[in-house]
């Protein structure tokens, strides 16, 4: 059909940041999906605890050590993550590169601690429903730690190539940082319910 020119977009930037970035909204949407998943698994934990005569079933409450330490590490990691986002916002590629390397370290350390968390539960996935739900809860969060670590590593590598100079990469860095906030945020309720739930 016939048309008339009503609007000129030539002045617009070639790439949108945060609110104006499509991937930023995509990340948000995936957080909503995974957040729902976490919420459901926590709901299952409460449901099972609610119908059980004893809780935890046939096991002492999990040791606080590794889990608490991991929580601290994750909270500390928020600082470099914040810096990544800020420097990315200023498109300071050099600083972003360094901060990403730091974030890799903050991705590996929790995984190491996680290896000690499973034994600290004093139960197995196949011992009883308590064992099953606790292992699944930890496992589910572990997969998020792993995926975000890999994502950070790939991104860091990318930042050291010529591609690191494009604004689009800045967006990727911001999405990755946003996702790390999510990984930490989801851990806190899990930590509370997993380690302090049985102690109430």
């Amino acid at each position, binding site marked *: *059909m*016939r*048309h*008339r*020119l*009503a*609007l*000129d*977009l*030539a*002045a*617009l*930037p*070639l*790439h*949108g940041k945060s*609110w*104006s*970035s*499509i991937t930023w*909204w*995509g990340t948000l*949407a*995936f957080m*909503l*999906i*995974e957040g*729902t*998943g976490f919420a*459901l*698994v926590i709901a*299952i934990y409460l*449901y*099972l605890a609610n*119908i*059980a005569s004893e809780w935890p*079933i046939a096991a002492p409450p999990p040791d606080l050590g590794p889990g608490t330490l991991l929580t601290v590490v994750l909270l500390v990691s928020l600082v470099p993550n914040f810096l990544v986002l800020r420097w990315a916002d200023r*498109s300071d*590629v050099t600083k972003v590169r360094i901060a990403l390397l730091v974030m890799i370290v903050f991705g590996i350390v929790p995984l190491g601690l996680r290896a000690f968390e499973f034994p600290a539960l004093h139960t197995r*996935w*196949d*011992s*009883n*429903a*308590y*064992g*099953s*739900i606790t*292992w*699944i809860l930890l496992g589910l969060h572990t997969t998020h730690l792993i995926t975000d670590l*890999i994502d950070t590593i*790939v991104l860091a590598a*990318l930042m050291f190539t010529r*591609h690191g*100079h*494009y*604004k*689009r990469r800045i967006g990727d860095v911001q999405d990755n940082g946003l996702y790390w906030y999510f990984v930490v945020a989801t851990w806190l309720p899990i930590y509370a319910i997993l380690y302090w739930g049985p102690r109430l």
Partner: protein
Amino acid sequence: MSEARAEAGDRTETLDRDLPPALLEQRLAVTWGTLAGFWGWLTTVDHKLIGRRYLVTAFVFLLLGGVLAMMMRLQLARPENRLLGADFYDQVFTMHGANMMFLFAVPVMEAVGVYLVPLMIGTRNIAFPRLNAFSYWMYLVGGLMLWTAFALDMGPDIGWFAYVPLSGPQFGYGKRSDIWAQMITFTEVAALAVAVEIVVTVFKQRAPGMSLDRIPLFVWAMLVTSFLVIMAMPAIMVASTSLILDRLVGTHFFNPAEGGDVLLWQHLFWFFGHPEVYIIFLPAVGMTSTIVTTFARRAIFGYVPLVLALIATGILAFGLWVHHMFATGLPRLGESFFTASSMAIAVPSGIQIFCWIATLWLGRPVLAVPLLFILAFFATFVLGGLTGVMVASVPLDTQVHDTYFVVAHFHYVLIGGAVFPLLGAIYYWFPKITGRMMSERLGRSAVGLLFVGFNLTFFPMHLLGLAGMPRRVYTYPAEMGWGGGNLFVSASAVILAAGFLVFFIDAIRSARHGAPAGDNPWDAATLEWATPSPPPSYNFAFLPVVTCANPLWDERDALPVATGLRVERRELLVTSAAEARPEARESSPRNSIWPLLSAIATSVMLIWSIFSPWAVVWGSIPIGIALIGWFWPKGTPEDDA
């Protein structure tokens, strides 16, 4: 250095307005086009090609599911029939349910959304087009896996709801239940991907000026549906995963002896399963609103109430899963609450019905085939909704639950409420998709056969149910006196099948020999009709600018459009979520083989993990590699900016 590159980019930029129309379309076609041949077929990320692929696949599954239905009717046509054995019948009815819900109903609605939403909101491609390609491959593999298993006598035999313990480690012998559970994973991954794409597309890629109150109702419906998918599907994925874990590595989620619970499964399943019904129904509401508007020849009556009704339905949908569990002996108080909420959902449905009738009342109805399907929808869906109110009542439900009354009820809701509008939508948008009209004559006979056949088939099932006939029985004793009713139903099913046959024949015939359609054969009001049929790879040479709710009606003489997009990279417009104010000229990914490779890697892992938990570890490595290949920049103008 980065600045230098950016400037260089800017210097070589060619703007659409600098080119004569013919050349512009040529250049855009080069930038946005799909390679010819098989390779192009594998690598395309064009939402129209993928949407069409989704549609065709879904309708193939509808055909297969229909064959299963006819087999069941053949078996039930007479008492103590030994045509299909018990074991085979169980597989057949499970396949019918699972296939229709997970491989037809949900995907077909998403397919229509994937095809139409970007066109209706005036953008050039869906958000995350590669994810879109990936989701189709996942859906395809999931479907093929289920049907292959069925062909191997390994089809699930546990009902589409797969209640434990029957589907659990002790009584679900072999891998049949795992096939079901993993098919869920495939289809839900696909569904979630599409949901994310649609949400982001609707939020960020609307044509400039398309503020919230100017979004076409079908797009609103797909938006709400996508949120339902995002909130509901995780429940079934958690459920099916824990089922596989119970069966494969011996967890105890559903084992009462070790602190698990059998009803936990039903809670999880129906927390997904009820919203599922609205995931299928709400897009149909959108289609109905669109068709009613066009064929009543006037703006929809009560746009805002209709949008609010959509949202209200979406929210209420999560408050009534327990009405599938009224016979499980849950506490009375809880049950009364769920009765109230289940009945409350009749109010938004009422609002929708009344607004549509008002639109027709105030308009000048044109009884073309799409509207005829909508009239068929009214008659059947209202009845289905009313029987829905009946099953929402706890005491009444204890009599009809798990009987043929319920079979009748949900077929009235799903076929009457979703499939009739869907077929109407196919007749309505077929010209846009193929550039050719479907046959009005065949269309009318299809509506007639479907409507008559449907009611003759399913209405008697209400009575059979009240007469005590339970669901999912592979046969029944002669002395129960259900023989006559069932024979009648089976005979009527032939009429229904004939109706679908006429539809398929018409669709296949018209795709080749239908009358050429032109841009806007129905003189409709929404943006998808502002571009040629079928639309070019870039959808719009100039992105439309929206000034009102029914642009093609209120801007008859000339549609306002925007300029200033570059042609040598795939460029589309990002606008603000509420007002749709232009924010950036964003690039959209090019065609790629990586989505297919990632889908293959993921499929290998998922199917392997039916047999060994280690598949999750080793199988994830190729997935990781494929994803890195997917996201690593290729130095195209789209990546570099």
